[in-house]
């Protein structure tokens, strides 16, 4: 469990270093995710501790998003001035994006395999 958490932190640190070194506009954690994925592919399995800490963290992922959202309170005036337009932009954009992405995948994927991963469960 502790070792698993350490693996996650180290991947993030490596990711941060790469982002800093190459000066790319992506968060270190995203690069860290790619690094960990490569590591898992090379190793061929997920160690028990890593799985426990990953699943623990992912289960409280939504809570981690709350503090940044509280920042909305600083912008009450901006939001009050344009909330209809903001909401309209968010609703239209989210709906169209969902629609197009789902349609694209449905079209490109309908010819490919479908059923084999249905109901697959992770150990």
């Amino acid at each position, binding site marked *: 469990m502790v070792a698993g958490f350490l693996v996650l932190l180290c991947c993030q640190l490596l990711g941060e270093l790469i982002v800093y070194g190459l000066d790319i506009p992506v968060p270190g954690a995203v690069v860290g995710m790619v690094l960990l994925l490569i590591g898992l592919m090379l190793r061929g399995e997920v160690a028990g501790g890593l799985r426990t800490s990953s*699943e623990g963290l992912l289960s409280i992922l*939504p*809570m981690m998003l709350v503090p940044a959202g509280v920042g909305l309170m600083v912008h009450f005036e901006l939001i009050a001035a344009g909330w209809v337009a*903001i909401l309209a932009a968010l609703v239209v954009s989210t709906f169209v994006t969902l629609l197009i992405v*789902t349609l694209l*995948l449905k079209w490109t994927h309908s010819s490919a395999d479908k059923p084999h991963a249905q109901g697959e469960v992770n150990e």
Partner: protein
Amino acid sequence: MSLWLEFQASPLLWIIVTVVAFMVASWINRIARRTPLLHPVVVGLLLIIGLLKLTDTSYETYKDGAQFISFLLGPAVVALAVPLYDNLARVRSMLVPLLVACTVGALVAALTAIAVGIWLELSMQTLLSLAPKSVTTPIAIGVADKIGGYPSLTAGLVLITGALGCLMSPFVCKMLKVEDPAIRGFSLGVAAHAMGTAYAFEYGAIAGAFGGLAMGMTGTFTAFMLPPLIRLLGLS
């Protein structure tokens, strides 16, 4: 009073406030039969804003403490590699369609938001804060900063987008008759980032893995694509 001042400056208080607010919000959400209209993240942050206003506490004071919770977002994003690895065979077999869907989705998300915003005459800074709203918070904040929006406004809009995505996804999938958890998860990840991903896990680990993949791909692509796009549109 001095006791209050003491505690107000301590991270512990704001960590507890955040956890309790999220628990209460989750409880409300369960009672409301898990409707994304009352998404725990949105209800939670509204509860906290209410409390901060009542106690006359500034956002900066809150953030100083609550940043320890935000900090976990980093390792959590790294942890997405695990469900992704579990479903690697599935991802490989769909790689090209996924790349196309993510690229198109990221462009559509940014362009439609900008277009509606311009049409309804939003101010330039609000518009620029709106543009990166479909990508995960840490990337969106960085992009907003780079193109001249307000990062903290973007962070809030990102979460509202996330809740909207969770709300609309079941409807869109029903309309298009899509049941494949991979497709459901991926479109949620493209349109609604980490909140979509967290919601996708309710459809199972496959949907969650594809949500995480979509979130990472869309976020990375948007980080590179949006600053030049904004310049191309003549907005900065």
